């Protein structure tokens, strides 16, 4: 018995897994048309490399990966490309996205392909390239390109490889059935992963104890492989990556970090099968096991489903009763999202199509007020306080939400599941996360704008200062030039300049006698102007208009004032010189 750790919280919803396990994995007839979305994974969408009307073979690449985080797409069957356009895809918003439509020719003819018989002798880099070219993205739900996970870089040595066979969501049995029927190939796939990662010390295959048949199927194949099959008590959401890592290793991933940072690579067990098919058989990822279940379907079982198969095609072959169906879910009842249309295709991450009846999953009841009963906090696997997060979500208090670690919520839905008031808690958290991310984004933008503005402001001021400096420099240069030209007419030396300045200063100093004479002259002049003005006034008074008389009166006044001023100046002058004279006498 290998030691496991127990995560906090968790819930035990009815498993409902037996319904789809009564029959082995089946095959569906090839649909007439298949729709391959260009984005079925995390990262950049693929870009179509075929044209409408082109004939393609099964397994032929129809879209190239773009950029480092992306995967290519392959034709799931042979036929012709009938459209490359936006179509509704499996997304919670029901949005449209670019898709390639293939009209099947019914022959299902494979393209030439070849695998590697002995991968042990191939370099990890080459195997990673095969996996990347096969278009493999995590098939557990997130769809992260597997090749990137397997190439964590030298600075992050991988010590532990975890294979996630938890399948903790109710209803889903895709992994369970695949393990029961394909254990040998899955173990071979794990061997390839181990080889790529340089044979990590621990290879742990985590599986819930509600799958004893699967565990029994694995046992004979794991002998001498170094793989430990670790079973642990069934509890939702043990299959969350963070939860599973804790259960198997007792280590928590630091908030915001990746498993690789802790020396761990975590791969879904369905992905290991796809990797085996890619490496050993040379087949790209063009089909997967998908559970078709729910009471609105007469047949509940797993199908090996071609990627791009419309959900309606699956329903049509499962005795689907639309009137009885309360909702159509892609994924499980806890984290799956509802489909508004059955025309959307199965993609690389589609592990289940759930078509429940009204008695299985009735319509939601209206939400009642939160009474903070705390059942959600007891159920939360991340030890959050969902009731407080809800409270602050309603108040849009972003600071409090972040202090309550909103972004550590994995949206498993355990809180909403137990909420006695039927509050769609997860929906509130998604909304708040979106709002906070938007606000952060806007803050970055406004910071940029402010920085730009401030820089602009600074630049303008600098330009103004530069101009001013230039002007000053020019003025100085001009003055220097003037001074140079002045001194060059006289003597060139500094002593000459000083002498010249002194000469100018002495010249300015006026002889007091001369000054007195000048004042006396100005008084005489003023006296004369006053007499003239009076005469003019007298003359005018007899025969001119009042207006002119007024002007002349003013002229007389002003002449008198000037005379007075001149007399005052002379008096001052005399006074000053008296003092000077007496000083000289002393």
């Amino acid at each position, binding site marked *: 018995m290998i030691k496991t750790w127990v995560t*906090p919280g968790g819930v035990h*919803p009815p498993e409902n897994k037996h319904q789809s396990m009564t029959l082995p994995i089946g095959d569906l007839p090839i649909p007439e048309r298949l729709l391959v979305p260009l984005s079925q994974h995390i990262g950049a969408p693929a870009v179509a490399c075929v044209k409408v009307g082109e004939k393609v073979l099964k397994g032929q690449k129809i879209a190239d990966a773009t950029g480092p985080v992306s995967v290519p797409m392959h034709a799931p069957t042979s036929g012709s490309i009938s459209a490359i356009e936006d179509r509704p895809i499996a997304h*919670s918003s*029901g949005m449209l996205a670019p898709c390639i439509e293939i009209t099947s020719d019914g022959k299902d003819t494979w393209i030439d392909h070849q695998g590697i018989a002995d991968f042990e002798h191939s370099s990890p880099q080459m195997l990673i390239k095969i996996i990347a070219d096969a278009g493999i993205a995590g098939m557990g739900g997130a769809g992260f390109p597997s090749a990137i996970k397997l190439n964590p870089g030298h600075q992050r040595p991988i010590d532990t490889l975890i294979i996630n066979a938890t399948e903790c969501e*109710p209803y889903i049995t895709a992994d369970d059935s695949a393990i029961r029927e394909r254990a040998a190939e899955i173990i071979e796939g794990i061997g390839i992963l181990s080889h790529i990662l340089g044979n990590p010390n621990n290879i742990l295959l985590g599986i819930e104890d509600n799958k004893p048949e699967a565990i029994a199927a694995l046992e004979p194949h794991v002998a001498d492989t170094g793989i430990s099959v670790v079973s642990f008590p069934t509890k939702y959401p043990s299959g969350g990556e*963070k939860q599973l890592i804790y259960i198997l290793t007792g280590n*928590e*991933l*630091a*908030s*915001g*970090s990746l498993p690789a940072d802790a020396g761990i690579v975590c791969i879904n067990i369905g992905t290991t099968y796809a990797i085996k098919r890619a490496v050993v058989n040379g087949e790209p990822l063009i089909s997967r096991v998908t559970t078709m279940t729910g009471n609105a379907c007469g047949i509940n079982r797993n199908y090996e489903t071609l990627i791009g198969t419309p959900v309606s095609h699956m329903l049509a072959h499962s005795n689907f009763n*639309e009137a009885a*169906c*309360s*909702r*159509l*879910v892609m*994924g499980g*009842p806890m*984290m*799956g999202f*509802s489909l*508004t*249309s*059955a025309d959307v295709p199965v993609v690389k991450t589609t592990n289940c199509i*759930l078509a*429940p009846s009204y008695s299985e*999953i009735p*319509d*939601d*009841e*209206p939400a*009642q*007020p939160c*009474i*903070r*009963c*705390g*059942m959600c*906090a*007891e159920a939360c696997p991340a*030890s959050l306080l969902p*009731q407080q997060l809800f409270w602050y979500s309603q108040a849009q208090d972003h*600071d*409090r939400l972040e*202090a*309550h*670690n909103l972004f*550590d919520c994995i949206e498993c*839905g355990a809180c*909403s*599941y137990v909420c*006695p*008031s*039927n509050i*769609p808690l*997860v*929906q509130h958290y*998604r909304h708040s996360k979106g709002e906070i991310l938007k606000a952060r984004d806007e803050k970055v933008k406004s910071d940029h704008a402010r920085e730009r503005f401030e820089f602009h402001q600074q630049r303008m001021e600098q330009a103004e200062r530069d101009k001013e400096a230039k002007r000053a420099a020019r003025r100085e240069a001009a003055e220097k030039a003037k001074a140079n030209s002045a001194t060059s007419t006289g003597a060139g030396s500094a002593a000459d300049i000083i002498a010249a300045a002194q000469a100018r200063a002495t010249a300015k100093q006026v002889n007091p006698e001369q000054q007195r004479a000048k004042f006396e002259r100005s008084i005489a002049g003023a006296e004369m102007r006053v007499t003239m003005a009076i005469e003019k006034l007298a003359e005018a008074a007899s025969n001119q208009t009042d207006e002119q008389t007024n002007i002349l009166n003013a002229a007389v006044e002003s002449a008198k004032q000037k005379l007075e001023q001149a007399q005052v100046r002379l008096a001052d002058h005399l006074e000053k010189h008296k003092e000077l004279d007496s000083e000289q006498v002393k």
Partner: protein
Amino acid sequence: MAFKQITSPHAHAAQNTAQVMRLVLWATVPGLAALTIQFGWGSLINVVLAVVTAVICEAAIIKLRKRPVAFYLRDYSAVVTAVLLGLALPPLAPWWVVVVGSMFSIVIAKQLYGGLGYNPFNPAMVGYVVLLISFPIQMTTWISPLSLLPDGVSHPGIIESVNIVFAGYSPADGVTGATPLDSFKHSSGLVVDQIYQNNPLFSQAMFAGVGWEWVNLGFLAGGIVLLATRIFTWHGPLAMLGAIALMSVIFWDGGSSESPGSALMHLFSGASMMGAFFILTDPVSSAVSNRGRLIYGALIGVLVYIIRAWGNYPDAVAFAVLLANFAAPFIDNYTLPRTYGHTDRRRATEKEEDA
């Protein structure tokens, strides 16, 4: 084919708020039964009267607030508040005491704050305290327990009880008497052993006070049922009872005349068990995290003991709960659990996580 767009999770546990509330109501049955056996029909009349008043008030206010009346009445929260208030009030209290308290609980303490989920204070305890302060005589007149009634006197029958409550008839002599907490408080000068020998409330008791120990056992039984069904966690109740026990042990004082009484007496007297399992577990007005509820419960336990031992009131659960309600948001700020992937618990008020 078109289908409904519904957010995940799609599965939902069967439990709803009304079921939680109904379970709480069922869990009060042992306590109510003990009260009725020990003190007559009074408590049952209180409960019925309080429930009728509360439901009428709740419906009227919801109607005033233009909300769907039936939808809100179906959550049973008003009934729970009323039942708890009815259980807390003295049996055979005049009808208007019950009506006023019940109205105050629902209209002022609950609906004016926004209704279910938004009241900062425990509505039943607000109603109780308003009555205790406004009508001290009616609120401190208790019935004697069954076994302490004088010879030839019995608890009034149901008709007589109704007459006492509604028509103001006086109960027969000897039907009313002191409670254990009362008598302990007013037995100064006697050492604990003397009180236990002289006072039939204690001398005829199994381990705490006659009658009252049964009532507390009843509420304890109901509380254990709620704990087992995970309606609430053990943190609050255990912290309160633990704090009362610890305080009683610390201040036991060797059973001298100054001693406020033994731990057993305090745990099984007054509203200790009802408070621990039915009052402080009201999630709306309590602290939210488990750690917070430990502090919240302990605070109530300490306050109860302090007021009982050195305050003016013989019992104190209502005051202690209201005081702790004030403190709950503050406690919440500092008692966040440690989230997965974080090295330490955070404060609700911090802007950025400490490195």
